[in-house]
């Protein structure tokens, strides 16, 4: 009898823990996760790829492969976050629908925002850092390749932890901004919010490491002759972004840590009672949060300068102004954060200051837009898909940015705050800016990453479907804001005219879904039938990454090039120079870092530790933590972590590329 009762207790606990009583969405998610996991295991076993996976990918410290892994993860997360968005739009298509319960809707909008910003946009951007920067500055890898791998695997395991929340214990439901006191234990008990705090803390460590890595790489490892004012625009944007990361992310780390200590250990930093000050969390969060959106857009601006210049066959107009404007945007981004809460009663002086500082950011951004237009002026514009995406940013981001200036007016913001006007604004900047830019970079650098080009015709279908769907989805939402609709409502009443506008918006959203399917089809089609990139320079490029083969050899450059000006590769081509320099210069053995399995394992231990903090299983947390410490200690005593590539191998690779 007792055995039966405790068996019953275990089953009850499991049903509740895995939320099996919460309906078909959970069961479907469980089914898909199990299928996908089994599928991966079966494929790896059947084709005997476990060793290959470990040797080539799980232990790599090569920036090019790490970049590819970031991009794959970003695309998968775009799918997950996009599905969340489609679920939300389906629920909101008509008044009073109950396709999603309030609880599920609340979890879905939270995971949608968190995934899109931290697990889709950030890895895509950082993936581009990895794919392009060392090649652009003419060096062999980043300054700290082992740390680079740690950055990736920490992100990977943080994303894994966060994504499991929907089916294990429940996802966070406080919004991606997660304001206390709602997210304190008093109002929001359970593991959900802990998932948010722990996963973001773990990935934040990886991002700070990335900032350090790329800052040092760009400062110390540029090829001889590449002064700061000869760097490619994308590298400049990475440099500036790395500085922003280093100043902003530690603030987030502190805010998350304090809130986690509140929830796990009962302190009162942000609670209603015990002297807590929830508003302080809001300040800390947005002090990070505003620079964060510039982290995800500045590299896109750098990329756009490259793409527009390349496909106009003309150098960037106003290089110095472009550099100065990026630095200005970066500095200004740190003095605008209060515009996220003008309505919190900060007083007219504070609100006025931050309103004007926010408007001021439009000025350097406008300079960049005009410089892009005048780069194209008198050029010869080829509308390859990468160019279409970068061009698409301009009208979309313009609308996003200028509605941002409208929002910067505090009295107007008192009406717009948290309304659909705000949602439309930030989707115009985030999708119209970041996502369009990410697609541009994917089409642009795909041949460099994989040695094959994505199909142009499919790419045009992808672009136009997405462009049209995106505008149909989000332009009407500006009107919804004026009609009084607030964000994060799981349903809304009839009688205000919101139904038709929401329905139009939902149709646009599903069009974006169709565009994503076209994109995936493009990837698969091109893998089989796509045009191979045989020269390494499919676009007649201007920067050094196009001087290598596609994909580049493991060591990037057999001989580190000497740079003589801006658009270094373009100059070399004009002067008939080879990337390996004048003939007859002998190769020397190349010093490269060893692969290591420790970043992967250490990050898995972070996952275990994180799960411990999420569920307050302290034994697990301690085991994970001790494991992390042991990994770090082992690394400290690792003296032999590099090897030399022999000259014979270099000669063989270069000969195959036709460069001897």
């Amino acid at each position, binding site marked *: 009898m007792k055995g039966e009762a405790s068996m019953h207790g275990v089953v009850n606990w499991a049903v509740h823990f895995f939320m099996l009583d919460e309906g078909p969405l959970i069961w479907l998610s469980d089914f898909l996760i199990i299928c996908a996991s089994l599928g991966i295991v079966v494929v790896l076993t059947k084709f005997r790829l476990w060793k290959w996976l470990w040797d080539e990918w799980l232990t790599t410290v090569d920036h090019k492969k790490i970049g590819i892994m970031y991009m794959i993860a970003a695309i998968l997360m775009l799918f997950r976050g996009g599905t969340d968005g489609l679920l939300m739009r389906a629920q909101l298509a008509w008044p009073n629908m109950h396709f999603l319960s309030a609880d599920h809707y609340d979890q879905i909008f939270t995971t949608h925002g968190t995934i899109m910003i931290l697990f889709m946009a950030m890895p895509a951007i950082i993936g581009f850092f990895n794919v392009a920067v060392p090649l652009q500055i003419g060096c062999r890898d980043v300054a700290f390749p082992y740390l680079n791998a740690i950055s990736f695997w920490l992100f990977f395991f943080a994303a894994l932890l966060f994504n499991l929340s929907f089916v294990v214990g429940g996802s966070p439901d406080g919004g991606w901004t997660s*304001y206390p006191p709602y997210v304190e234990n008093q109002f929001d008990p359970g593991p959900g919010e802990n998932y948010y705090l722990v996963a973001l803390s773990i990935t934040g460590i990886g991002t700070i490491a990335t900032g350090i890595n790329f800052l040092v790489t760009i400062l110390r490892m540029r090829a001889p002759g590449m002064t700061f004012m000869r760097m490619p625009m994308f590298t400049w944007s990475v440099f500036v972004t790395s500085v922003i990361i280093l100043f902003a992310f530690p603030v987030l780390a502190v805010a998350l840590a304090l809130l986690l200590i509140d929830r796990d250990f009962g302190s009162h930093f942000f609670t209603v009672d015990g002297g807590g000050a929830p508003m302080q969390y809001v300040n800390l969060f947005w002090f990070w949060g505003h620079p964060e959106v510039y982290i995800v857009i500045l590299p896109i601006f750098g990329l756009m300068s490259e793409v527009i210049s390349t496909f106009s066959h003309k150098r960037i107009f106003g290089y110095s102004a472009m550099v100065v404007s990026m630095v200005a945007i970066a500095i200004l981004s740190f003095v605008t954060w209060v515009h996220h809460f003008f309505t*919190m009663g900060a007083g007219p002086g504070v609100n006025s200051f931050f309103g004007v500082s926010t408007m001021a950011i439009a000025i350097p951004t406008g300079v960049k837009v005009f410089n892009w237009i005048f780069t194209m002026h008198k050029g010869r514009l080829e509308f390859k898909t990468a160019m279409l995406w970068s061009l698409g940013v301009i009208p979309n981001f313009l609308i996003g940015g200028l509605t941002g*200036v409208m929002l910067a007016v505090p009295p107007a913001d*008192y009406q717009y705050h948290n309304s659909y006007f705000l949602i439309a604004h930030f989707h115009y900047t985030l999708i119209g800016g970041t996502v369009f830019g990410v697609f541009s970079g994917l089409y642009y650098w795909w041949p460099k990453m994989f*040695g094959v080009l994505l199909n142009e015709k499919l790419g045009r279908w992808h672009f136009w479907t997405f462009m049209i769907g995106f505008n149909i989805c989000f332009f009407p939402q500006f*009107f919804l804001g*004026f009609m009084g609709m607030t964000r994060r409502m799981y349903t809304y009443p009839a009688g205000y005219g919101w139904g038709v506008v929401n329905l139009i918006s939902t149709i646009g959203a599903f069009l974006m879904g169709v565009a994503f399917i076209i994109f995936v089809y493009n990837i698969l089609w091109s893998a089989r039938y796509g045009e191979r990139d045989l020269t390494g320079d499919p676009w007649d490029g201007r920067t050094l990454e196009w001087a290598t083969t596609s994909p580049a050899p493991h060591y990037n450059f057999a001989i580190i090039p000497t740079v003589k000006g801006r658009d270094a590769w373009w100059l070399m081509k004009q002067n008939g120079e080879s990337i390996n320099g004048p003939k007859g210069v002998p190769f020397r053995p190349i010093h490269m870092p060893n692969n290591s399995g420790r970043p992967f394992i250490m990050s898995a231990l972070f996952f275990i530790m994180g799960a411990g903090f999420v569920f307050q299983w302290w034994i697990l947390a301690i085991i994970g933590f001790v494991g992390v410490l042991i990994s770090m200690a082992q690394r400290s005593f690792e003296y032999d972590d590099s090897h030399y590539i022999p000259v014979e191998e270099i000669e063989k690779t270069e000969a195959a590329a036709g460069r001897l």
Partner: protein
Amino acid sequence: MVSLSIVVCKRGAPRKFRNRQDRRETKATMKPKGRRVGGLIALIGFTVLALTGCDSPTYWPVLSPQGPVARSEYYLIIYSFILMLLVVLAVFILFFWVIIKYRARPDNADYVPPEIEGNAKLETLWTVIPILVVIALAIPTVAVTYKLVYPPKVEAATAKIVGKSITIDVISEQWKWVFKYPAQNIETVNYVNIPAGVPVDFELTSSGPMNTFWVPALGGMEFTMPNMNLKLWLEADHPGSYLGRGAQYSGRGFAHMTFTVNALSPTDFENWVKSVQQTAPKLTKQAEAQINRPGLIGKLTFSSTTPE
């Protein structure tokens, strides 16, 4: 790189043009960029029309201000929109002109673009003009930001309020709105009656999660936070019923946190207050407990503000 060629690569042939004429004919059937510009202008025109034609506080509360606070905010919204629209039009026209004029065509295949570093005059122009636009926007912005701190209808010289005002304490709960009228000693839940034409000083606080108090037809919103009191001045021009809602997510019942603001003529308001004081039940500890419990309740009226 062996690792990247695990897929079988076939020499598939995407469609190739037979010759230059074939390419030209195919491209001629593509939608010309001019029609896209037209579509865009139609979109903008529709927007402007739609905005100016919106005069219903039920459907377009933000654009149909029913009080002086909403009106100040509305003028700034329209002003900033027009400024931004001018910028958008200027940039769109320039942008589309450049991408149409300088596109690659078969007949400019041997055109070599000039290497232009920049143009100091142009760059100065498009830095200075945006600065001027920002200044033009910033001046009325700062003025109105300061003005809204004070009640509507203040004496310019002394910043003292002209005529009467009424203070109402607002407490956001999970998931309802509680209104206490300290001078009248009455309380209402999920609706608030105010005298029309009289400035109302809403003192905002929360007993739980943060929320924001928003009556779009009468003015912008402000946060309600626990252990803090924020002041929001609103006023209704004339009698009417206006929708209010919470606009800061606070949990599963948040979408249902609406309330009604009934502006009554001053006489009607006085009569209503008297009838509540005489006929409504007193606030009991039980009723207070029910209000504090998370959930949705309907409209309630009490003739006292402290539970007994």
